[in-house]
């Protein structure tokens, strides 16, 4: 986190620069089944972020050495498109993307019933087309929908959400300015039905009390986004059944 400087992020009336309340999230729009080449896919717009996710598989895991005898491996690639950020990102190896891919894969392996597909691989391709803070959470939300769209059995959905701290105040779902000039960010991957945490990162500075408020906000938002996920999957199901577009 950048730490806070001269930038004022909370208005006199207690609202945030974009008019949101401290525990209010940005608008989230989800569509399932958007990529014809994929076995399952999703498109998520969260604020100005856009993430697209394709799922391929289960398929034979190769090279052989990545195979697990007792379960499927989930092979996640989180990637930011070169044009997704203010300064162009050079394609290629990127340590941040590798780390996010790893912990995202591990979070998804916590909900997918991987034991059903021994020795196989499920490819999850997350592409960030536009980034406005919180892309790892948006990607996680998209991945869960794409897996469901592909018919991969899961014991729960996952929702990616983040709370954080700006001007010593805990707020839900940091936008770009809040992310740049804020004091802490706590992204989580939450199982909306059980409230378990499958993805957890945090950086910045939080007291234990502030952590608890962040957690509360994240849990609340997870339920809201979950409803939008379910709605997208329902529309997709109806479309498939009804033979619509």
């Amino acid at each position, binding site marked *: 986190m950048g730490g806070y400087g001269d930038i004022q992020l909370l208005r006199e009336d207690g609202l945030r620069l974009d008019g949101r309340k401290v525990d209010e999230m940005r608008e989230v729009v989800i569509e399932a089944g958007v990529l014809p*080449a*994929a076995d399952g896919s999703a498109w998520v717009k969260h604020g100005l972020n856009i993430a*697209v996710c394709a799922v391929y598989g289960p*398929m034979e895991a190769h090279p052989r050495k990545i195979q697990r005898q007792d379960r499927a491996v989930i092979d996640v690639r989180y990637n930011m*498109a*070169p*044009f997704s950020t203010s300064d162009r990102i050079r394609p290629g190896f990127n340590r941040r993307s590798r780390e996010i891919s790893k912990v995202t894969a591990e979070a998804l392996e916590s909900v997918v019933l991987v034991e059903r597909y021994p020795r196989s691989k499920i490819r999850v*391709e997350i*592409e960030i087309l536009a*980034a406005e803070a919180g892309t790892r959470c948006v990607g996680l939300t998209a991945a869960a929908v794409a897996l469901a769209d592909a018919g991969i059995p899961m014991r729960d959905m996952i929702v990616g959400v983040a709370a954080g701290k700006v001007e010593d105040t805990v707020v839900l779902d940091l936008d770009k300015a809040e992310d740049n000039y804020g004091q802490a960010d706590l992204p989580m991957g939450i199982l909306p039905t059980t409230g378990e945490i499958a993805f957890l990162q945090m950086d910045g500075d939080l007291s234990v009390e502030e952590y608890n408020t962040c957690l509360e906000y994240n849990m609340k938002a997870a339920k809201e986004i979950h409803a939008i996920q379910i709605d997208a999957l329902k529309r997709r199901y109806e479309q498939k059944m009804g033979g619509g577009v």
Partner: protein
Amino acid sequence: MVALVPSLLRQELANLAAQDQRIDGRAQFEARELTLETDCLYNAEGSAKVTWGDTIIYAGVKFEMRTPWPDRPAQGSLMCSAELRPIAGRKYEPGPPSPESIELSRVVDRGIRESNCIDMDKLCIIPGEKVLGVMIDIHVLSDQGNIFDACALGAIAALRTAIVPAERFDIGEDYPLTVSMTPTMASFTRVGGRYVLDANEEEELGGDERIHITLGDEGHLHSLQKGLRGTLTPAEFAEILEVAQSRCAELAELVNSKEA
């Protein structure tokens, strides 16, 4: 088995061609439906989404301020790069750029570059010190055939609707990039022995060589490329070049309709 299925498909495609038919019912030189959206990506200074049958690509333009090459102190630069990441289809694998993605990038790049639609001199801000670099990145999200034409279309559409972020670079007010021409591409694939326009994924799987033709505003050739195993005769080329002339004119009109 991998070899078997394509051979059955090849047979089927040959039978259809003999009856002047295609596997999805189109005529020999009929393209699939397509939609072109522009200005669809936050953070990109120009953007386009092309939905071309079941093929989907995005193109985004970014500018950067940089020091000029020593041998061209008063010229900016243009670069067009297409990524074929594993999201695009089951057959794509992670790793360094494949020969296929390098070819795609370079053929699309040449079509735009060689049309001279961007005046490199106008991208110079301070000679010898600061010039603008224009980067067109293309991202294939779903490959269901003929990504070359879709990428070329997205690239020129993103470019023609791009806004130079002059304020961000402290060089005045933002302004639209000047693009003087609309080069577009028409690609032909030999399927069942004859060339068809805009092959879909099955036709590519069971087909042979591809010819990529990029034409500019007056029907001039700016880029040609033959890809994959196979040969063509001069007469065959003459025939598809004529088809390309009318097809490219249509596509250019579509792009031009998107401008501010």
